[in-house]
């Protein structure tokens, strides 16, 4: 017998999204509606209907009938694509928002690391922000005082403790923010993709900290896109797809189910995908990879030359295309951005609305890869699509040296050995 930590029954969450407008039959209808609407909205508001202003708009179910039980001490990974409802689930569990239907019972204090550094004030010093942020996260003053040294040591900012955080480097800032949050000691901890902060050394440290937390018998819910990380930390996995639980089992089962749906997404038309972020003045409408060393085949081998082509539907000033290549476990391998100009970059208005990234040699070892793409325009994020395309790399040669797959790493580099003996 074990204690229950979280029970969710039929959790659903409806959101209102703007856009869809009622079409008017007559001008008089429109006029009366315009005149009456403010009063009706005020009435709704007084009756407490939050969505008073949005009643004519379209709705979307971010979570639909989600039920599960988590027992005390379990470490659970929550997996899903963007917009699958992972964050909504954590927001309901932490109390930020109410479910529209269903309920969840939580036993014990809940701490959440949904986004580090919210609530930091740039004008206050590191020490002052530790107190403020700690209090926001639900720590008592005495508790913060007791842990102050530990927090400061973990964040490695001791020299700057009494400097306003606006003078901090971004690295110091996130280290401090994470450190405060990581020293929360609730019975239940909700963690949303916060491990990807700071430099590699600090990330490893955060990981160690999270591993410690997971070992101390606390209940932890992790949301991450990093499948390797989740497989390392969690025993159980819940895979959410379009707001519903598709798989609830061991972490490997959940990861497998997730990877399968990524394959299915690949075949879907990019412009029809809704799991994207950004303003939307420009959308990524197509992505393809072409092997440029043997014409236009889409079969790639390590060492081949390739073109990665990204089609957009509009042009904006200062438009930039950023891509990130990830391996099949979701570990990021390499990324490029068109904002950093090189002498070989060229301008090709005849090519149409597209970005082409030309690679002379593919240094990826055989395996399956996917590409996340973001389009920046006018200095704002316009579009972000995860797994905009996936591609396979087959065994090939890198400058004549055979390249084959290994589970330990996924990139090679042109190299030569100088050997002490000839065998």
């Amino acid at each position, binding site marked *: 017998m*074990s204690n229950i930590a979280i029970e969710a029954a039929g959790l659903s969450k409806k959101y209102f999204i703007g856009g869809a407008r009622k079409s008017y039959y007559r001008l008089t209808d429109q006029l009366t509606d315009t005149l009456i609407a403010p009063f009706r909205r005020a009435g709704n508001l007084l009756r407490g209907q939050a969505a008073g202003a949005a009643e004519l708009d379209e709705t979307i179910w971010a979570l639909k009938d989600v039920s599960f039980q988590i027992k005390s001490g379990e470490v659970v990974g929550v997996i899903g694509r963007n917009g699958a409802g992972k964050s909504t689930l954590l927001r309901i569990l932490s109390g*930020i928002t*109410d479910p529209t239907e269903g309920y969840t019972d*939580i036993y014990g204090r809940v701490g959440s690391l*949904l986004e580090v550094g919210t*609530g930091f004030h740039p004008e206050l010093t590191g020490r002052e922000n530790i107190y*403020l942020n700690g209090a926001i996260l639900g720590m008592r003053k005495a508790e913060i005082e007791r842990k102050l040294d530990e927090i400061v040591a973990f964040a490695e900012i001791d020299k700057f403790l009494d400097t306003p955080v606006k003078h901090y480097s971004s690295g110091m800032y996130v280290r401090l923010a994470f450190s405060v949050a990581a020293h929360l000691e609730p019975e239940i901890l909700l963690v949303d993709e916060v491990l990807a902060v700071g430099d590699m050394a600090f990330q490893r440290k955060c990981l160690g900290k999270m591993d410690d937390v997971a070992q101390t018998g606390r209940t932890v819910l992790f949301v991450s896109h990093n499948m390797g990380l989740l497989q390392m930390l969690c025993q159980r996995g819940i895979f959410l797809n379009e707001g519903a639980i598709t*798989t*609830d*089992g061991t972490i490997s089962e959940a990861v497998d189910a997730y990877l399968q749906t990524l394959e299915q997404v690949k075949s879907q038309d990019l412009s029809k995908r809704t799991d994207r972020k950004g303003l939307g003045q420009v959308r990524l409408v197509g992505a393809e990879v072409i092997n440029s060393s043997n014409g236009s085949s889409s079969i790639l081998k390590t060492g081949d030359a390739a073109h990665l082509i990204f089609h957009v539907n509009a042009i904006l000033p200062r438009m930039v295309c950023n891509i990130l290549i990830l391996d099949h476990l979701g570990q990021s391998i390499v990324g490029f951005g068109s904002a950093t100009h090189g002498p070989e970059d060229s301008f090709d208005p005849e090519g149409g609305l597209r970005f082409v990234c030309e690679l002379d040699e593919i240094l990826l070892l055989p395996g399956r890869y996917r590409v996340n793409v973001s389009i920046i325009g006018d200095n704002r994020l316009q579009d972000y699509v995860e797994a905009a395309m996936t591609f396979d790399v087959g065994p090939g040669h890198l400058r004549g040296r055979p390249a084959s797959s290994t589970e330990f790493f996924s990139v090679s580099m042109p190299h030569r050995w100088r050997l002490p003996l000839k065998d």
Partner: protein
Amino acid sequence: MDSIDRQPRGVAALPGKDNMLVIPKNLPKTRRQPSTGWAWPKLRELWEFRELLFFFAWRDIKVRYKQTVMGASWAIIQPFFTMVIFSLFFGRLAKIPSDGVPYPVFSYAALVPWTFFANALTQASNSLVFSANMIKKIYFPRLALPIATVLAGVIDFALAFIVLLGIMLYYGLAPTINVVWLPFFLLLALVTSLGVGLWLSAMNVQFRDVRYTVPFLAQAWLFVTPIAYPSSMLAEPWRTVYGLNPMAGVVEGFRWALLGSGSAPGPMLIVSVAVALTLFVSGLFYFRRMEQSFADVL
């Protein structure tokens, strides 16, 4: 993705573990469910987070005058120069009566609680919108935000009050014994500010129109409060009606407690207290009703 069969959920899907789950008795249970209808304000939770209330107020005070040349003296400059202008135009030119007290003291004694109220009104109404990011990312009692901004104003009030004592000294006026009632009138100002602040902050989340209404509201309220003139200009049945503006009760009370001018608190004050309490309690309930949607609407 319908092709993937749904596996049994929850505990049943756990691999090879005993499936008996019991409800722990030693841990507090929290239920999160759709909120329907009116509910009790979460005052106990606010009490548990009372340190957060303190930290928010402390942050507001600490940050407010950073990067200003004049610093905290703004707390004094604002009411002081209003007093100078009022004394020139209403006192000297319009010759508005001041209950036998020098006009500058008369108006400044009213401007001290008024400035507290007006600032609380403006800052509380924006408190939630300005902290939108935090509200969307972290859970803490939402009540802490507007309440802390109002409480932070007490420091400004104290600074302006010290200047008031200085002005009284300059005019050779000593506080009367009525001064023991002063904390009560400050409390009345606080309750009024909180009541209006709770209403406006919650409404501002839903309707950003509030932001444009508040400066106008503050200005109109200034003129319907006996700051530039004494409420003794009104005859009796109307004086009691005047108490419907709780700030009228506060301002008259301040003058009576400090300067002994005007008349002792009477029916007008009772009306003011009733209105202030109604505003405050209804504000708490309205806030409670709206707060679940803050994170979704902001």
